[in-house]
């Protein structure tokens, strides 16, 4: 293996309905179409050496998904970015590529910044629910997992949670006479993983807050949590240091 490349990509629009497995198939095909000299694992049934870190759930959009590709001969990150992006369907968009220099990418993904849009929701109710949730020490929620119904705390992993109201001129999702509440939250990656819909369920449990239409969720960033801002920083920064991108 000559080189490892770290890729930030987005999952946008209707492609947010892709599952993790859908994305890995699409990436493998795009790599072949783009003629990227991907390395293969050894053994009985060789697989392309592409690994995925912290993938967003099916139905959730993201501006900050990460994967790592091992290649057999050195590639220029910017060329690989353009080639891979051109070979992926629109909506799976490659935003950034750097050469891996040090450490594990997965270890740097300490938390995520999520945006949850709730068209038609009442801003005052959202605000008070958020307050209620953040003052609670623990909010027990349950989710159906592959292993059955699981109970866990949705509060502990939430580093911050604020409620805003959308600018109607910019985002007309809820129609002209509808408000659109936007929740911004920073959630630490813990086990069991707490997802935005777990937080929404928590809001319903603590304050009976239930949005009238399905939420639209986007991951805006994930990375090491910055102590000063409280938000995730660029996880590829450490690879860029000293590099000639």
């Amino acid at each position: 293996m000559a080189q490892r490349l770290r890729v930030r990509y987005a999952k946008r629009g209707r492609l947010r309905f892709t599952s993790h497995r859908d994305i890995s198939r699409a990436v493998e095909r795009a790599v072949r179409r783009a003629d990227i000299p991907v390395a293969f694992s050894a053994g009985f049934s060789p697989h392309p050496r592409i690994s995925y870190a912290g993938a967003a759930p099916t139905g959730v959009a993201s501006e900050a998904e990460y994967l790592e590709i091992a290649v057999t001969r050195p590639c220029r990150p910017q060329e690989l970015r353009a080639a891979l992006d051109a070979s992926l369907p629109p909506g799976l968009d490659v935003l950034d590529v750097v050469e891996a220099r040090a450490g594990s990418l997965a270890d740097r993904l300490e938390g995520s910044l999520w945006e949850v849009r709730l068209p038609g929701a009442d801003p005052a109710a959202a605000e008070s629910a958020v307050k209620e949730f953040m003052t609670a020490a623990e909010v027990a929620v349950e989710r159906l997992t592959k292993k059955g119904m699981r109970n866990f705390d949705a509060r502990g992993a939430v580093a911050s949670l604020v409620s805003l109201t959308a600018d109607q001129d910019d985002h007309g999702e809820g129609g002209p006479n509808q408000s659109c509440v936007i929740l911004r939250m920073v959630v630490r990656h813990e086990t069991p993983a707490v997802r935005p819909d777990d937080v929404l369920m928590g809001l319903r449990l603590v304050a009976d807050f239930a949005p009238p239409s399905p939420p639209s969720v986007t991951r805006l960033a994930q990375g090491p949590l910055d102590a000063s801002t409280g938000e995730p920083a660029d996880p590829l920064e450490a690879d860029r240091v000293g590099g000639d991108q």
Partner: protein
Amino acid sequence: MSVESLFPRLEALLPKVQKPIQYVGGELNSTVKDWDEATVRWALMYPDAYEVGLPNQGVQILYEILNELPETLAERTYAVWPDLERLMRAEGVPQFTVDAHRPVRAFDVLGLSFSTELGYTNMLTALDLAGIPLSSADRGPDDPIVLAGGHAAFNPEPIADFIDAAVLGDGEQIAIAISEVIREWKAEGEPGGRDGVLLRLAETGGVYVPRFYDVEYLPDGRIKRVVPNRSGVPSRVFKHTVMDLDEWPYPKKPLVPLAETVHERFSVEIFRGCTRGCRFCQAGMITRPVRERSITTIGAMVDNGIRESGFSEVGLLSLSSADHSEIGEVAKGLADRYEGSNVSLSLPSTRVDAFNIDLANEFSRNGRRSGLTFAPEGGSERMRKVINKMVSEEDLIRTVTTAYSQGWRQVKLYFMCGLPTEEDVDVLGIADLARKVIKAGREATGSRDVRCTVSIGGFVPKPHTPFQWAAQADHETVDRRLRELRNTLRNDKQYGKAIGMRYHDGKPSIVEGLLSRGDRRVGKIIQKVWEDGGRFDGWSEHFSYDRWMACAAEALDGEPVDVDWYTVREREEHEVLPWDHLDAGLDREWLWQDWQDAVNDVEVEDCRWTPCYDCGVCPTMGTEIQIGPTGRKLLPLTVVS
């Protein structure tokens, strides 16, 4: 009039359904054309789930060909699962295309491709969700023309009330011709309305419009005759045959889905038609004559397909791929070209001879030697003569021994149960064969690490085959024979553990038989089953035999016929069969003679290497066998490492 995208309304439902990605479209190489710039708009439907329908070659080919026409657009729609169907009904969201999420009712044509009859109930769901009346007679000027194609369309009588028209055979040229007829009719101001355009299509002799034909019955329930009920409509409708496959190298831009589908590979059809003459095989009968794609076109299509799709597996499709006149060169050429790359090649291998193993060895150069599949189809020598599958036990043992000794560890054998004249001993013969296979494999390899799986399907007599007159075996008999076979294998201490057996119970075959050889009266059963909630009949978890039987009893109440009459009854030579006015080119007298030969264990050779045996197709259709060799070689290409 432009139409709005249904996507915003559909999107709100998607978080609540399983595998939402199957409904969003956006596949690589999919096409969205401007609605207002097109005159003729087709919605193409494969009436099964997206994961089955997306890879379908027929739909992909027509989608691409129609979209290449300047004034035509084509989009695709698939059966939605019951979870989304419920939400669509609750929210009033109609059946949509996945390309631009346009409502299916807004199109000019709804073209359905029926590979199997088990998609009929899904068609009714789609029509109903689209807001299109189920019955052709109830449709108005705003409804699309509902057009059926695919192999099941060679007897569309059970769905005659639901469709407006059907097309038999290869779709490439007739789809373009139909588009042209509709374009002209629209340009002239749609004279005669719906019937006007259907009449124009019927008059060509290449499009069957069921409601222009009346079916008369005898008091005992048999058909008396089928006659056109207006002038200009021909008494017989013929199938379509594309003669030069090199002129139609589609798909050029294979659709690459995001969702997982049943075939994750790029497929190239290396020839159409088959003249091996297996008597059970409808596909082999209705797709004659054999027309090969040349080695150079195959090579170019494979190269283009891999580059366009990014698939890592290439399948060489046909009814019996090892029979291509230059398959050895094709296999070696492709294996050389992709040696050392991660592109793998596959060939549905069904022929039982050593040559097939050479091919399999070439194709497995890049991968492992896991399993090989052969299809002797009949368990005894006599049975194989009846079905004209000319494989001797000696051939089979020699072939699998070669396979095992060359490193293949697993051999899969396909058989059928319920064949005409079959007795218990014929099915138990499958166990004997499997035991001999394992014994020979152990001797050849000196190892106990060899396996054999027998996979058994229920035989269903099909229209346009020599078995169209045969009595289908009842499901009790099929199930009993399969049970005895299973017990025999289970009780075999010496070889039983090395032999696997895969099979289904016999009930679904009875429903398939009812739909395959049914007439217009069967339509009432289909509608009742659908009204009762019948969906996705090809899926065992959705299929209900009891529902089909209960609905059949209700629908046929007062008729002199029942399910047994359609399935387990043998027909006599001169009975009018529901599809007799639909012409696949096969001479009816030849089919009958071949049926008599079957019963008398007389075999017939392949007309590619022996003289013509007068099946009738070439003179009727004005076609001839198109085979090589061309003598050309595949040039090595620079490939992805």
